[in-house]
């Protein structure tokens, strides 16, 4: 059975390590914060100027001056720090963030990513995405394997305007956990109950399948 968005978030959360500084993009990536494994400490960075995002505020306690990159009200954890946007992007551009998780429209088998523009239809702007993918040590894309029309989002080449080139390291979709290698996509795990055949069929880019592919443990 294909994973739902929480399942994707749960699998990505398994990649977190103790002491990691992490930036989570809007959409499915934000859900990763709900599945941080027991016993490890992860500090979430918000590009608009907070290191140490806490849980959403209690009912009635939302503060206009305390929001995340998606403009939602949040709290700050104990030990948090506030700073300006130039400092925030020094953290990002200077390679201080251990893991970046973001969504995508398309990913190519060389690790290119398109996530910010559909020409003539959707031009919301790139926000911090280009900075994140250009400088992150470790990038995981969270996405559905195909779009609503059933077309693969894992391609030989991106067709939409690029956010970054040769930068994606891992992809978690509703069907699979895939690594981007020098030779293309490599299938590492399948979603519980999902067949290798289905994943191969729904992947347009070059997909390496070697040996038995285990199921994700989610």
């Amino acid at each position: 059975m294909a994973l739902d968005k929480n399942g994707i978030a749960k699998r990505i959360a398994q990649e977190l390590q103790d002491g990691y500084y992490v930036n989570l993009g809007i959409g499915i990536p934000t859900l990763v914060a709900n599945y941080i494994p027991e016993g490890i400490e992860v500090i979430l960075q918000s590009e608009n100027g907070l290191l140490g995002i806490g849980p959403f505020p209690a009912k009635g306690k939302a503060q206009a001056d305390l929001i995340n990159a998606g403009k939602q009200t949040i709290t700050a954890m104990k030990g948090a720090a506030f700073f300006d946007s130039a400092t925030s992007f020094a953290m990002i551009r200077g390679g201080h963030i251990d893991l970046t998780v973001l969504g995508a429209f398309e990913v190519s088998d060389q690790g290119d990513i398109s996530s910010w523009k559909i020409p003539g239809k959707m031009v919301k702007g790139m926000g911090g995405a280009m900075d994140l993918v250009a400088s992150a040590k470790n990038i995981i894309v969270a996405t559905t394997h195909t779009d609503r029309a059933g077309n693969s989002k894992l391609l030989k080449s991106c067709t939409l305007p690029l956010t970054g080139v040769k930068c994606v390291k891992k992809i978690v979709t509703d069907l699979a956990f895939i690594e981007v290698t020098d030779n293309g996509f490599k299938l590492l795990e399948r979603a519980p109950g999902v067949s290798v055949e289905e994943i191969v069929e729904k992947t347009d880019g070059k997909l390496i399948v070697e040996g038995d592919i285990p199921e994700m443990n989610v």
Partner: protein
Amino acid sequence: MNKIVKNAKEAIKGIQDNMTLMLGGFGLCGIPENSITELVNNNVTGLTCISNNAGVDDFGLGLLLHKHQIKKMISSYVGENKEFERQLLSGELEVELNPQGTLAERIRAGGAGIPAFFVPAGVGTEVAEGKEVRKFDGKEYLMETCLTADFAIVKAWKADAYGNLVYRDTANNFNNMMASAGKITIAEVEEIVPVGELAPNEIHTPGIFVQRVFKAENLEKRIEFVTEQE
């Protein structure tokens, strides 16, 4: 030394048609509300506005967009404003989209006297069009130029008569850098305190960068997405 002026109307004196303005804020957080209202009332047009976002349709910069007072926007994300997206797609509004970190650094550099610098964001994308690419240590970078403005309008929590500013939580965002990059910087603040009350260790923007300070009235401080525990 006393940089305090009476209100937004006094503060924006000198802002004219076709000027370049910087406006602080991230989404609706930390935006100079009174100043924007005053710009709308004043009917200044042909503005080039440098701001990370474009507000929402009926608040923040969205108000200036509705009255077609803005000729060009330099921003990183305009998703929450349908009118902006419409004006962009139709060609009515000239838009330059910058990666957010690049925008932040262009403004910081402008205030810091650095005319150009190299960053990796946008290499290999349409952001790189027309820009010099240079390799450092085997990695490619784009040359980006600095940004300055005729007026920078920032929003702060506290100020004193010397123009020292303190921000609250995530309402700093672009305000600190913009304060340094305006020929004239206007600070719209929630509280004006006596000189000496702001501890030197806690000041975010030293007063040297700020020319005018005024106390805001009737701030709405709208929240875009109130998100709370059930």
